[in-house]
Every structure is written in structure tokens, then in C-alpha cells.
């Protein structure tokens, strides 16, 4: 008999707030975290705005590790993990370390470490690069540092499936718990703002100059951001036994690959529809049961159009009745953290029956004609929420969360 798995804690570090309360208030208020990029000089670029987390101080969250030893994405992740555990009312000392694990996702890991390496390389001063490159760069260090800070000795995995990584990481944690390999899993995603990522998207012509406007007729692209989200997942039995607050149950997930193009989605949304279908089938929900979809919704002309096609393909007429919103309108695209943050949004939507808006929606696009919850948050009964994410490499992942029926 496989355990049912629930979400009992949420920790986030974002450009609009750190910690579940501040973050959710900002989401419902439609607050935008995009601002002028400060972490590097953008004068050589045609775009200058990003969703940076400004003024982040990791010190309050690190008791065992020294912040100077950690890359930025690791710092975000540890902070989000501490916040999530506290939100769940869980004390590390009460956990069996062998039964507490970590499953995290990322797009780039710690790209600033490569940037530092290169800064020395181009000046022919490579001798300035020391042990810290290998000590901070490899992306698995994000989940390693989490476990090191918290003393967790259970299953530990990093799943760097780019912009869908958060969903993959949460899905894996779900499986680990159901297989009885752990009693609690921290799952989520983290990414740090970097010139490598910004340059890449800018060079693809994919970055919007001012605001991110998912599904809007005049949308000009995505806006790179950064942040982290960590969720506490545990078996329903354990959550009940300790009278934990349960945000939502993980109903199921679906993973697929377009096998079509590295950066462009399949034109008929085939892979995306398959992932959604699998997630629904596993959770025992039909398309008509879905009360909210957190879209991938990057704000690029192509993604938003293709995503709409995929949703219509699966949901048919019901597509017009289910609200769909993209919080990337507020945060920009936080890469590997995005789908984890959006899973938190779904969990909170399920818990509170409120859904965040897609802000900056000024003019509807005839090709994107669904209900995208324009500009204002809404009260709406959410029994089943779906979280969709699509990544470079054609990696598609859908996660279904539902109210935990006792």
C-alpha cells in the first residue's frame, strides 16, 4: 500500500518576498519583482531588467555552514529549506537523519563560479582560481549543502532539468516517499541570476525590455529572474500523527520529452499534453476537475501560444472554464526555481481557495483566449490544481496537487 504524500511546509526566497507569508501576500497583491539589473553591467546589452533578489542576506539561515563557502543558489536553497522546515513546524533534531532526504532542481547550478573562473582566465590570472571552484561550482552542491547544513543523510539528488527542474525534483521526492525510502523530503528548486543566463536569453532575442506580459497580445518575451523554493513533503500518516498543517496532497505527476528541438517547444504541444494527461490520470482527476492551472507562461510569443494550444488539446471545452495564471508576470523567469515556486502557489491556492493573477495583461491576444486571471487575484474554490513546466531540451513536467480529503 503506497503512502499518500502531502505538503506541510513552504519556504521561498523571491524578488517580492522571503518566506511564505510575505511571498503569498505579494502574489495576491500582484506585486512585481522586476527591476533594473544590478549584479553586473548591462551596458553592452539591449535589455537591462531582471527579477533579482535584492538585499538577500543568507546569514540568519546558516547555523552550521559559512555563507562564504556557498554559491548564491545554495544560499537561497538553504534559506528556503530553513524557512520550509520552520513553516512545517519540524525540528531537525526530531528527525532520523537516515530517513530525511533532499531532492532539488536547477537550471544552471552556480554559474557565477564559472564567471569568476573566466574573469581570471581572460586576464591570464588563472592562479587566482583556487579550491573554491570545485568547492562551489558543481550543481549537486546545492542539494549537498542543504543536507550538510541540516544533517540529512537520506536520499540526496540534484535534478538539473532546466526550467522544469522544480517539478521534476518534487515528483522524485514524491516517489522516494511512496517507495518508503524516506520519512520526510525537502524538494524544490533554486537558481541564481547570472550574466551567462542573461546573455544567452538576450542573444536569443527572448528578453522583454520592460515588463513580462504572459498571454498579452503585445508580449515581448521573458525576463530572467532568480530565487528558490523548498517544500516539505511527508507521508499523510506522519503529517496527521503530528497534527501538521497540510497545504495540499500531491496527486500525481507526468513527465515527457518533445524530442523535437533544444529551445523551441513542439508545435502541436504533443509532449506537453502527454505530461498533463499522465499527471491527471495518476491523481484520479479528469480535466473537468481541474480548478486552476499555474502556467509555464514565460511571456514569449511562442511559449504562450503553444501552451494555450496544449491546454486546449487536453481540456477541450473545459479549457475556457479553468482559470490559468502565470506568476512569471510578477517574478520573471526564476529558471530551476520557477516550477517549485509555482508548486507552492498551487499548494497555497488549494489551501486558501485564492489564485494569483497574471499581471501586465493589457490587451488580449486572439490566439490566447483563455481566462488568464488578468491583473487581479481572485477567490476561487481550488480542489485540484495543475502546475505545468517546459524546459530546454524538450523536458516537460506536470504536477497535480489536490485538497487533502481526510
Amino acid at each position, binding site marked *: 500500500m503506497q503512502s499518500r504524500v502531502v505538503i506541510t511546509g513552504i519556504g521561498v526566497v523571491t524578488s517580492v518576498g522571503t518566506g511564505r507569508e510575505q511571498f503569498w501576500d505579494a502574489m495576491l497583491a500582484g506585486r512585481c519583482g522586476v527591476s533594473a539589473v544590478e549584479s553586473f553591467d548591462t551596458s553592452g546589452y539591449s535589455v537591462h531588467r531582471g527579477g533579482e533578489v535584492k538585499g538577500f542576506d543568507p546569514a540568519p539561515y546558516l547555523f552550521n555552514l559559512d555563507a562564504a563557502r556557498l554559491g548564491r543558489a545554495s544560499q537561497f536553497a538553504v534559506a528556503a529549506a530553513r524557512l520550509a522546515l520552520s513553516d512545517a513546524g519540524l525540528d531537525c533534531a526530531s528527525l532520523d537523519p537516515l530517513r530525511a532526504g533532499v531532492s532539488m532542481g536547477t537550471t544552471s547550478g552556480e554559474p557565477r563560479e564559472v564567471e569568476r573562473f573566466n574573469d581570471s582566465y581572460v586576464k591570464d590570472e588563472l592562479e587566482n582560481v583556487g579550491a573554491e571552484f570545485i568547492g562551489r561550482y558543481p550543481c549537486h552542491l546545492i542539494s549537498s549543502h542543504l543536507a550538510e547544513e541540516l544533517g540529512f543523510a537520506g536520499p540526496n539528488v540534484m535534478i538539473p*532539468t532546466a526550467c522544469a527542474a522544480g517539478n521534476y525534483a518534487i515528483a522524485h521526492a514524491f516517489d522516494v516517499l511512496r517507495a518508503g525510502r524516506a520519512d520526510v523530503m525537502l524538494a524544490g528548486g533554486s537558481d541564481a541570476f547570472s550574466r551567462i543566463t542573461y546573455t544567452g536569453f538576450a542573444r536569443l532575442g527572448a528578453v522583454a525590455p520592460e515588463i513580462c506580459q504572459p498571454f498579452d497580445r503585445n508580449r515581448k518575451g521573458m525576463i530572467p529572474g532568480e530565487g528558490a523554493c523548498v517544500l516539505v513533503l511527508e507521508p499523510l500518516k506522519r503529517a496527521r500523527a503530528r497534527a501538521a498543517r497540510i497545504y495540499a496532497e500531491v496527486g500525481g505527476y507526468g513527465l515527457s*520529452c518533445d524530442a523535437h528541438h533544444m529551445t523551441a517547444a513542439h508545435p502541436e504541444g504533443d509532449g506537453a499534453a502527454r505530461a498533463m494527461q499522465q499527471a491527471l490520470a495518476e491523481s484520479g482527476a479528469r480535466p473537468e476537475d481541474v480548478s486552476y492551472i499555474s502556467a509555464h507562461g514565460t511571456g514569449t510569443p511562442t511559449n504562450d501560444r503553444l501552451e494555450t494550444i496544449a491546454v486546449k488539446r487536453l481540456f477541450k471545452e473545459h479549457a475556457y472554464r479553468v482559470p490559468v495564471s502565470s506568476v512569471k508576470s510578477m517574478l520573471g523567469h526564476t529558471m530551476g526555481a520557477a516550477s517549485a515556486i509555482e508548486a507552492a502557489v498551487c499548494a497555497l491556492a488549494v489551501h486558501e481557495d485564492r489564485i494569483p493573477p497574471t499581471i501586465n495583461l493589457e490587451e488580449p491576444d486572439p490566439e490566447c483566449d483563455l481566462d488568464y486571471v488578468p491583473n487581479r487575484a481572485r477567490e476561487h474554490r481550488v480542489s485540484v490544481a495543475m502546475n505545468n513546466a517546459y524546459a530546454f531540451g524538450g523536458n516537460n513536467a506536470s504536477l497535480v496537487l489536490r485538497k487533502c480529503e481526510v
Partner: protein
Amino acid sequence: MKRVVITGAGVVSSLGDTPEALHAALCEGRSGIGPIGLFDTKGLGCPLGGEVKDFDAQKYLGRRNLRPLDRTSRLVASAAQMALDDSGWRAEMRAVEEVGLVLGTMFCSVRTISEFDRRALEAGPAYASPMDFANTVINAAAGQTAILHDLRGVNTTVSTGVTSGLQAIAYAVDLIRAGRARALLAGGADELCFESFYGFDRAGLLCRSDGHEGHYAIPFDARRNGFTPGEGAALVMLEEESAALARGARVLAEVSGTGCGYDSSRGRDERKGVESIAHAMRFALYEAMLRAYEVEALSASANGSPGGDRREALAIAEVFGQHARTMPATAVKALLGETLGASGAMQVIAAIETMRDGRLPGIPQLEEVEADFPLVPARHACPNVDADNVLVNSVGFDGHSCSILLARVEG
């Protein structure tokens, strides 16, 4: 619980590009480690690596357009082609059924990422290469390989350092057991490149060798002082047993158990390190419902690292007790170097060959182990190891460990 079997294998290594060639070289004690041609090693503490010489992906992939693929992607796509051919999963079958890919890699290509950034730094952001950008994500090789081979099933990248490839196989086994996937290629890859090599060197992790005969990274040897980096790709095809038999597949071995552990002290506390490695082995034994003494051969992860090799040996002693003194054990990284993401999968492929012909590779340069080492791995290849059950270990330097049990399948 559903039984998961291996129905094919593909490998690109410094010792050959077929399981048979790799196995023959290992058993003959031939080393794939030598002077590096891929980049300039001047000024580096160790000028040696396990490079895949004269690697030409076109040889395996035919006339396909490989320009968008970097070295790591080419290694993976090549190994994938061979594993697909070996398992009989032809293109027309893949068009109808979704075959997936779970790839373990520590870096994917840190070289591609670095070069992308350097070009932008030197020439300006307007000159960065959009094609290269697609390869700067750590799941790039898995994505490129899926496109080339029409792999529309689950596509996941697992990045846990040295253990990436073995953990990828464990992840894939779990998906098949849960009924989430029909057939999955799983394993790992990493390429030899200046950036990671330099990083390891600066961190003091590499074997201080002047290249003289006998001065290589020697697993378990008392003189060991670090590892030698290698590269390659190795993938196995995993399927549920009855489905594999129903389509007439040739079964190479069964994956009977897997286990993972994590050392939260990351090597600083020997006890914690030993416990985490032992936990991984015990969990694999528990899943396979095997007693420790029923394991008839062991493929260790040891790569010449002073602390890592010791922790693994102590863990083996704890789990196997007296049996550890006579159980045949090997450490193929002695001859392949540390191939990171590829390593665990290469060990699995080599172990399958051992189950097939009874030969277990030795550790040619091994002379003496530490005084309190309970494990006595062989210097020379063992010619007649009759192993129904082989344990494969993967142990990383940042705390991860993973163990997989392979069972021989009759017929």
C-alpha cells in the same frame, strides 16, 4: 515488486567502444590513462587523463548533423545509439512506443558553459553564440540525445557528482517498477576538459604523478594520493522483465536492488562517511532480499582518493564481515580513471561481462594496502569468478553514495 532487467548496453571509453573490448582491456590490465591531447596540461600538477582518443561520433551516428552537439552530447548520443541497437529497440519501434532517457552527469559540459561566457566577455554579449547557449544547460546532452534518437518518454538528468550514472540507473529502475515507464536508457557521461581538470587540480584532488610507469592513481594502495580524471559515456537499456521477454529481448542481467546514502559531514567525519556507504549497500541487499555472503563479486568505486577509498573499504568490511576477506573485488577506475558521471554505468557494464565469462579485472599497480584495511582486492585479474550476484558501488567526494546489485539471468 516488478523485476527490472538490462537488455542492452552501449559504451564509449578510453579502453574501447564495446562492452567486450572494454572488458578484455580491463582483464588484460591495459590502462586507458595517458598524456592528454584535448587541452594543454602545462603547469598542471598531473598531465594524465583517461581520454577517449580519436573519438568520432559520426562513426556511431552516421551522416546525422552533429554540429549542434558538444563533446558530452556526442559521447551520450553515441553510447545511446549502441545501447538502442544492442537492445533491439529499432527506430520504428521508438516511433510507436515512448523510450526514455535518464542521464547522470556531474558537469554536462562545463567547457561549453565556460566558452560561451568567455566569448561574450572577450567580444561582447552581442557575439555570444545562441547555438552554444542551448548547450549551457546541464540537461543539454539528454535533450540532444532525445532529439537524435526520438526518445519521447521520461527525460531526466541526475547530477550527483561521481555517483550520477549509478543514481540515474537507480532512478530509472524505480520508474519502471512503478509502472511509469516502458523502457529507459540509463547511465551517465562526462567529458575531459580543461575547466574541470584545472578545478580538481587546484582543489588538490588529483594524483600527483609524473607519468612514470607505475605512478598512477592506484585504488586502495597505501601510496595513493588522488585520482586521475577520465571521460566517456555508458548507457544500459532497462525494461520490466516480462515485457522484455514478451518482445523477445535478450536479457543481460537483472537489477535486483538499489540503495543510496548521503554523508552529511562530506568526508570530515569518517564514521558518518562509512555509515552512509554501508547504508547504500545494505539497502540494495535488502531490496534484493540477499544476505551479504551471497554477493560473489564487488566492483568498488575506489579511484585512488586517500579518504574516499578508505571509507569505502571500511564500509565493505562492516557490511560483509568475514566475507570481505575472500570476496573477489575490483576497482576499474585504476585503468579508466575517474570518469565521473559515466563511472557507475561503466562499472555495471563491466560487471555484466564478468558474470558472462567469469573474469574479474585486477588492479595492476596495487602493491600494498594500509595496515588495517580489511579488504584484499586482487592485483591480478581473477579468471574464474562464478558470480550470480555482483554489487556495484559508486562513492562521490561530496557525500553521495549509491549501490546496485546485479543478478545473473539464466539463458
